[in-house]
């Protein structure tokens, strides 16, 4: 009964939290808009190098947020990989005996890679961009992993480290080069914004795909020297 009272009290507290938040949202909606950000954005979109406003915000106007975000992703990937306990990636236990999956993979993987490349390219003037393409790349890698296809680049080694670090490194390099060329940190030199944004998006896609795939691969615990998962020590 004490437990029931606790549950009720917690639910009442959460309901009051919801009410306070709803009141805050409604009062914020009733007041006039505090800034004219949307108009300023529409005015400077032409100078940003891309036509998709979300891509322009992500990689030009607020590129510092994206730089820090890819840094956070690299840190999360390092933490996840350091906990990895997979004996090998060629584990026969992982290889699926499902012939239907293998037959589908032969069609899906090239199509999904093409889709990722299209999403990356279309991010300039249409909905799309580096994050969506990176997610599709990671999904392709996960599909390959589930089908038991060997993937050398996920084994801890040079290729994995290169893939993880490439996005953040290139982004930082462009930012510092902008600073050394006399502009502000992360400011693109005039006229080169479009090309630089595309280059950064390409490496960002590769990095994000690799990071998400590495985190997925690092999750299971298959190690012949440690007991099976779930049995305790």
């Amino acid at each position, binding site marked *: 009964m004490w437990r029931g009272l606790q*549950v009720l009290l*917690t*639910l009442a507290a*959460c*309901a009051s*939290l*919801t009410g306070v*938040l*709803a009141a805050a*949202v*409604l009062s*914020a*909606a009733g007041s006039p*808009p505090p800034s004219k*950000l*949307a108009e300023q*954005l529409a005015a400077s979109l032409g100078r940003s190098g891309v036509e998709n*406003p*979300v891509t*322009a*915000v*992500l990689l030009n*106007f*607020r590129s510092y*947020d*994206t730089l820090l*975000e890819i840094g*956070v*992703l690299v840190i*999360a*990937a390092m*933490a*996840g990989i350091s*906990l*990895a*306990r997979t004996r090998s990636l060629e584990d026969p236990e992982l290889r699926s005996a499902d012939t239907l999956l293998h037959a589908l993979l032969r069609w899906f993987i090239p199509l999904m890679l093409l889709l990722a490349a299209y999403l990356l390219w279309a991010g300039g003037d249409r909905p799309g*961009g580096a*994050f969506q393409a*990176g*997610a599709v790349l990671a999904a392709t890698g996960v599909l390959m992993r589930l089908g038991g296809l060997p993937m050398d680049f996920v084994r801890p080694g040079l290729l994995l480290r290169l893939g993880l670090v490439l996005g953040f490194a290139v982004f930082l390099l462009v930012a510092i080069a902008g600073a050394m060329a006399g502009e502000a940190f992360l400011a693109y030199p005039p006229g080169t914004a479009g090309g630089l944004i595309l280059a950064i998006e390409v490496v960002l896609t590769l990095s*994000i795909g690799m*990071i*998400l795939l590495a*985190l*997925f691969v*690092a*999750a*299971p*615990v298959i190690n012949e020297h*440690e*007991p099976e*998962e*779930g*049995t*305790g*020590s």
Partner: protein
Amino acid sequence: MSPELVYALAGVGLCGIGVSGFLLLSHLLRRLLAFNLIGSGTFLVLVGLAQHRGVPDPVPQALVLTGIVVAIAATALAVVLIRRYFHLTGRTSLAEDGDGRS
């Protein structure tokens, strides 16, 4: 009340549901799901409140895009940690919350 404000209020409701689930449930994976619900609710509030006059605003959309990617990286890291914890102790909830019932 514009349609976008309906989504903002739904986001507020999701935050409330997520917080109550996070506090009341004991299985670690369910707490992770509740935490993701809080995140999704926050994203809805961000975009819904900013666009409630009907004009699409790219800045909160970009912030939410970044947020979604960071959220899944954090969720993946949390899954790695939960599975390690399960591997080492055989439990699916923290010690003071009772035994590992799902």
